[in-house]
């Protein structure tokens, strides 16, 4: 008969000290950050509870005013146009840049480093900040919105694109280089066919993001439905506000569904 395993002396070594330290110190860091953050922001569950009454009273007034609907169409169209133009310009700017920012298609190492740095800096600034900075310069309206979305889309798309380009099969590139084709022709014939579907999918995804973003940047004066939303909110016209919210909700859902469908057909 085999002896009871529990009675045998353990042959498994004790868990290394280092591993135990990592686990307990991670927990400690989480707890410290939690207490510091709640204390400094004044987050309080009891305040949240007291606020629920006001919250529901406010929601009660959020009944969409259907008579306001006709006035929503023009600004919502403007929002869509801002998103469309931002995506179009951003894509056009990103296309040449992303090949300079990819190690396997760039002209030389200095260009590669400069292109990557420029993209990282541009990407680190949120589109909302671009819009807020540009609105006073370019006058309130759709123009700063388009520029803000173009810059941000370009930076994000060039980054995603260069990662895709760097992952292509290098074989066809070598073959065309060996046949005497120059850099641009190698890109067009050996790289573009390999990344075209993925890139189109990225562009659709960026458009999806830009529709949402163009609503938000309207709040800082960059045109579209966001600007309208802020104006009605300042007039306490909650019926109008909720009508706008409903329209935005339906629009974003529709664009998302359309984009998901289109992307599923691509790859």
């Amino acid at each position, binding site marked *: 008969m085999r002896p009871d395993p529990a009675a045998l002396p353990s042959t498994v070594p004790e868990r290394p000290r280092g591993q135990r330290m990592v686990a307990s110190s991670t927990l400690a860091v989480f707890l410290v950050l939690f207490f510091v953050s709640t204390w400094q922001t004044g987050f309080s569950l009891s305040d949240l509870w007291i606020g629920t009454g006001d919250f529901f009273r406010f929601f009660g007034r959020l009944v969409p005013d259907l008579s306001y609907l006709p006035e929503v169409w023009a600004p919502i169209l403007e929002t869509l146009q801002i998103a469309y133009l931002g995506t179009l310009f951003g894509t056009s700017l990103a296309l040449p840049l992303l090949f300079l920012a990819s190690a396997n298609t760039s002209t030389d190492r200095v260009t590669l480093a400069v292109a990557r740095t420029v993209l990282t800096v541009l990407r680190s600034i949120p589109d909302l900040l671009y819009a807020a900075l540009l609105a006073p310069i370019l006058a309130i309206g759709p123009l700063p919105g388009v520029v803000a979305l173009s810059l941000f889309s370009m930076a994000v798309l060039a980054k995603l694109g260069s990662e895709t380009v760097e992952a292509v099969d290098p*074989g066809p590139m070598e073959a*065309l280089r*060996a*046949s005497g*084709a120059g850099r641009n022709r190698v890109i067009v*014939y050996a790289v573009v066919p390999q990344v075209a579907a993925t890139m189109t999918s990225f562009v659709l995804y960026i458009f999806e993001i830009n529709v949402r973003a163009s609503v938000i940047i309207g709040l800082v004066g960059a045109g579209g439905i966001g600007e309208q939303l802020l104006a009605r909110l300042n007039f306490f016209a909650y019926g109008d506000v909720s009508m706008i919210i409903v329209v935005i909700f339906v629009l974003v859902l529709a664009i998302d569904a359309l984009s998901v469908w289109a992307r599923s057909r691509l790859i």
Partner: protein
Amino acid sequence: MIEFRDLEVTYPNGVKALKGIDLTIPKGQFVVIVGLSGAGKSTLIRAVNHLVPPSKGEVRIDGRSVSKATGRDLRRIRSKIGMIFQTFNLVKRSSVLRNVLAGRLGHTSAIRGLLGLFTKRDLALAHDSLRRVGIPEKAWQRADALSGGQQQRVGIARALAQQPEVMLADEPVASLDPPTSHAVMSDLKRISREDGITTLVNLHFIDMAREYADRIVGMRDGVIVFDGTPDEATDQAFEDIYGRPIDVEKDLRGAA
């Protein structure tokens, strides 16, 4: 004529792949280079079109130095050198015809090339190349829809569309089955004969080297250890090149 003069290649990681190669290949000769993996066969072939830059010495084609050429001059020399690869290196998502036309890029102006405006002559050359490798009906299929042997034929057609004077083939049959390997090698040999193309082929297999080569060059550790006719390349000679007894399983491809 291809001339290697005291050619040395050292890779950035310090590996000395070629240690002083002197070799002259007359126009139209069909040369098979044999040797174990790591012997320097691939480096030797890639030095011909400067895909690998030499650290010493040079390669000359018809008296012109490939190793000293840069930019436009290098591209012009390369446009006359066809190359075939073990893994075919086709653009899988593009059509067969577009892959073959890509072979014309070195002969096409930048604007025409970028816009895809190939001339009637380019198209005719592409179709003729496909006909010569026996797959004209595949022109509009996607490259990845073809079998391995057919894909390698597209690779040959792409090189043929260049109207090359030199053809380089780096292990062209290593990913193919024996009958297909023989078919591809016969195509290469026939085309070399018909067009007088100087051809350099890397091969692993002794029997195929003997069957197709005008001349066999054996390499070991970056130097040439054998240079002779197929008749001179006896089993003993191959054992010297490989530095080990012949392994029937690994070193023979078998008949078609």
